[in-house]
């Protein structure tokens, strides 16, 4: 039997980039085929071609042995391909039914002659959604509004949306990025159920663990090329990582036990509000000592951003206190906090970490440009800044054509290195890092992780906030879990298990939901 989907010799050029270089990919009927690769490896380009969003410059696509061409997603949908995008393609104010039928509306038979102005038949659509939901054990409520649903449920809506269009092939693009480990496990159960009932799935991820958990075959892409295909039985994590990066990678961070010193950061009963004046940080208290890494785990959007912004002076504190060494910094300005010895690697490097339209060298002195030796009175000393930049570029392995290159034109990994270099070059006593490796390649992740551990070993107190559980577990000495703005529990990292942390992230403590 021919494969459900076969792509041969796919080539796609964008101005200046060869995004896909003669890529071959096939999906057997009834299998889960994992596709692994770093950002920019060409996975998304390949999937967008298979979904009709891009047209390939060369190569052919066949569905069950029949060559075909997609000029838009419409064609791909008609051929039975469904895609669940990494950022959900849902319309929040509409109901689940409306979201699912959008573009393929069922109509009241009596008014059908009116075309797009005929009346919608919501009832029969909802009925079909209930049937699908029952058949594939995808729990969705057709009448709920999407904006009221948790992410896990929104994802199920996306899957039902594809099934409603009679998709036989499902492309899941980084589906676990927004889920807790338990929700991810639930998704895997759903995926197996779908495959059992004859669907075929392409599963894209950058998490190695998930590859082993759910796939039948694994393909790895690097630099626009298909590196190879293997099975979970034959592969090891080290092998896959090497295929992804093209060289050996140390996955496990090598670090000694922490030697905690004095308390550097003391947070007591902190309350913070978000932009809409809803309190999103409730009564949070913790300490970070010199020479330890405190990891804050939690699904995104549980108050981590507001917490970090409050600690760094970017957001007003509405209750409680923050003390840095002996200084009360509850209402201090960002510059005061920086001058007390805080380094901050913000969550969004484009918005808050860098001035994208400034050159590398200026970005490297953003915290210190107004001080000697970079400033002489009101004047900037370009020569000193250039020297400093040269030094940091070498020390932190920032791959840039020159120190005058605009930071916006560097890769994500190198942009992050610019920030880390800037924040660690000063004698910081406290380092606050928020999602330090989001969207970075394995090589850069390894480098930045090593730098964070080195900072700890130099007796810096480190507060690490991350939604990646693997990152939290491999770097932290202690782990605090945030859920709905509260710290549910703080565990010692060596004793913490993935399951324990996953339950806490879902708000379950001591067997009960809080």
């Amino acid at each position, binding site marked *: 039997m021919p494969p459900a989907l076969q792509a041969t010799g796919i080539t796609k050029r964008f101005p200046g980039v060869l995004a896909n270089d003669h890529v071959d990919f096939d999906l057997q009927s009834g299998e889960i085929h994992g596709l692994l690769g770093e950002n920019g490896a060409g996975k998304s380009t390949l999937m967008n071609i298979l979904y009709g969003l891009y047209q390939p410059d060369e190569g052919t696509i066949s569905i069950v042995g029949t060559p075909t061409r997609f000029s838009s997603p419409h064609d791909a949908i008609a051929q039975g391909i469904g*895609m669940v995008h990494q950022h959900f393609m849902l319309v929040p*104010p509409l109901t689940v039914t409306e*979201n699912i039928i959008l573009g393929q509306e069922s109509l009241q038979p009596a008014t059908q002659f009116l075309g797009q102005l005929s009346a*919608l038949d919501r009832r029969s659509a909802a009925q079909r959604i209930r049937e699908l939901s029952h058949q594939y054990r995808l729990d969705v409520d057709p*009448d709920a509004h999407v904006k009221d649903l948790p992410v896990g449920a929104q994802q199920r809506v996306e899957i039902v949306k594809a099934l409603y269009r009679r998709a036989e092939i499902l492309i899941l693009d980084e589906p676990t990025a927004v889920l807790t480990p338990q929700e991810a496990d639930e998704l895997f159960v759903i995926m197996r159920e779908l495959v059992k009932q004859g669907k075929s799935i392409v599963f894209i991820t950058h998490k190695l663990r998930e590859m082993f958990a759910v796939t039948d075959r694994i393909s790895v892409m690097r630099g626009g090329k298909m590196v190879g295909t293997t099975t979970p039985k034959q592969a090891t994590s080290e092998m896959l990582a090497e295929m992804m990066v093209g060289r050996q990678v140390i996955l496990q961070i090598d670090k000694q036990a922490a030697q905690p010193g004095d308390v550097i950061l003391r947070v007591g009963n902190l309350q913070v509000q978000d932009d809409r004046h809803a309190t999103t940080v409730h009564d949070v208290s913790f300490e970070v000592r010199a020479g330890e890494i405190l990891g804050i785990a939690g699904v995104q959007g549980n108050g981590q951003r507001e917490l970090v912004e409050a600690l760094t002076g970017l957001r007003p504190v509405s209750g409680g206190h923050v003390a840095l060494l002996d200084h009360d910094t509850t209402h201090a300005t960002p510059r005061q906090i920086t001058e007390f010895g805080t380094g901050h690697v913000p969550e969004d490097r484009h918005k808050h970490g860098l001035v994208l339209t400034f050159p590398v060298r200026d970005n490297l002195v953003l915290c210190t440009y107004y001080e000697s030796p970079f400033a002489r009175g009101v004047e900037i000393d370009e020569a000193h800044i250039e020297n400093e930049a040269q030094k940091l570029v070498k020390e932190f392995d920032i791959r840039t054509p020159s120190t005058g290159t605009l930071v916006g034109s560097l890769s994500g990994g190198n942009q992050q290195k610019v920030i880390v270099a800037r924040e660690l070059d000063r004698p910081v006593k406290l380092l606050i890092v928020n999602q330090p490796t989001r969207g970075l390649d394995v090589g850069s992740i390894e480098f930045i992780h090593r730098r964070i551990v080195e900072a700890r070993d130099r007796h810096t107190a480190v507060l690490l906030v991350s939604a990646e559980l693997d990152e939290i577990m491999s770097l932290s000495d202690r782990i605090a879990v945030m859920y709905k703005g509260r710290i549910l529990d703080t565990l010692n990292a060596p004793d913490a298990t993935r399951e324990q942390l996953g339950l806490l992230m879902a708000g379950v403590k001591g067997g009960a939901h809080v």
Partner: protein
Amino acid sequence: MAVLANKQRAIKISSRQILNAVFIGIGAVAVFLVFDAIIGGKCDSKCVIGTLNQAIRYAAPVALAAYCGLMCERAAVINIGIEGMMLTAAMVGYGVNVYAFTWLKAGGMDPALAGDASRWLSLLLAIAASGLMALLHGVVSIRFKADQIISGTVINILALGITGYFYRQYLAQDIPPGPGTFAPFDIPLLAQIPILGPIVFQGQKPIVYFMMIVTLLIHYVLFFTPWGLRTRAVGENPRAADTLGINVFRVRYINVLLGGALAGFAGAWFTLEAVDVFNPQMTNGLGFIGLAAMIFGNWSPFGALAGALIFGLGNTITTTISIFRPDIPSQIPQMLPYVLTILVLTGFVGRAIPPAADGQPYEKQ
């Protein structure tokens, strides 16, 4: 659990709506009492019915302008050029009416027939003119992704220039006698309903009745048809619509053009229904008041109609006051509808939520 939460939310929203309705009711009664006192207790039941009937008449252009804004913004195209589209339609309506009538009569047509023909022809061309302006707005803001506020402002300024030119050149003096505006008529049967009949279905002209029908029509199209679903999806999350094979640009163009047609009706109301003259200031900001009514109505047709009716009522009362009380400087009552609009907008409306993608040009990936 989720269902329960949904129900609770539904109840919460409707209780707020009830509260709003009660406020509007109390407000309306209070306004009438004050109004009655000002004109010296002369407002009997006949006067109340007449005032409401007149209020609907004045509400029509505002409501139609609001529907224009609504059609555009539901598809995420902000249109502040409604005023200009209306002004153009008003000018074209008047000019075509007068000159078509003259030519038809000169061609030997029966004057009554020529009057009807030229009125309907001028309505059609007024709509077309407004539609042309809307097409310009669409091309600039959808195709060329320009800032929609600037595009709308340009439409307004352009309309001032065009209408000003034609007005000075052809419509200011030595105008041939025209056929006048549309004649009022009653809707058979519906006009017989007690109270409601005399208020709503008696003595209005075609565009006002059209406004009533179009309110129902837009509500149906937006919330009960595939086209409406797609429009709302395009206004909230165009990328999601795109991934489902919906042509975002096409949806936006058609909605902007439909909006333009509605603004054409609104403009034609001035010269084909209200008065038989054209002057370059005659739309008098009603396009913008229409946008306010749209926001007041939270981007829904019935809400927008309520907003337009409040304005229409204010306008009617103003006129009556200046007739009965010439001693009050006319500028003061004339402020009333606008003050009312501001009060209503800032007052008890609550937070209006525009479509999420409103004003953002769509970039295909």
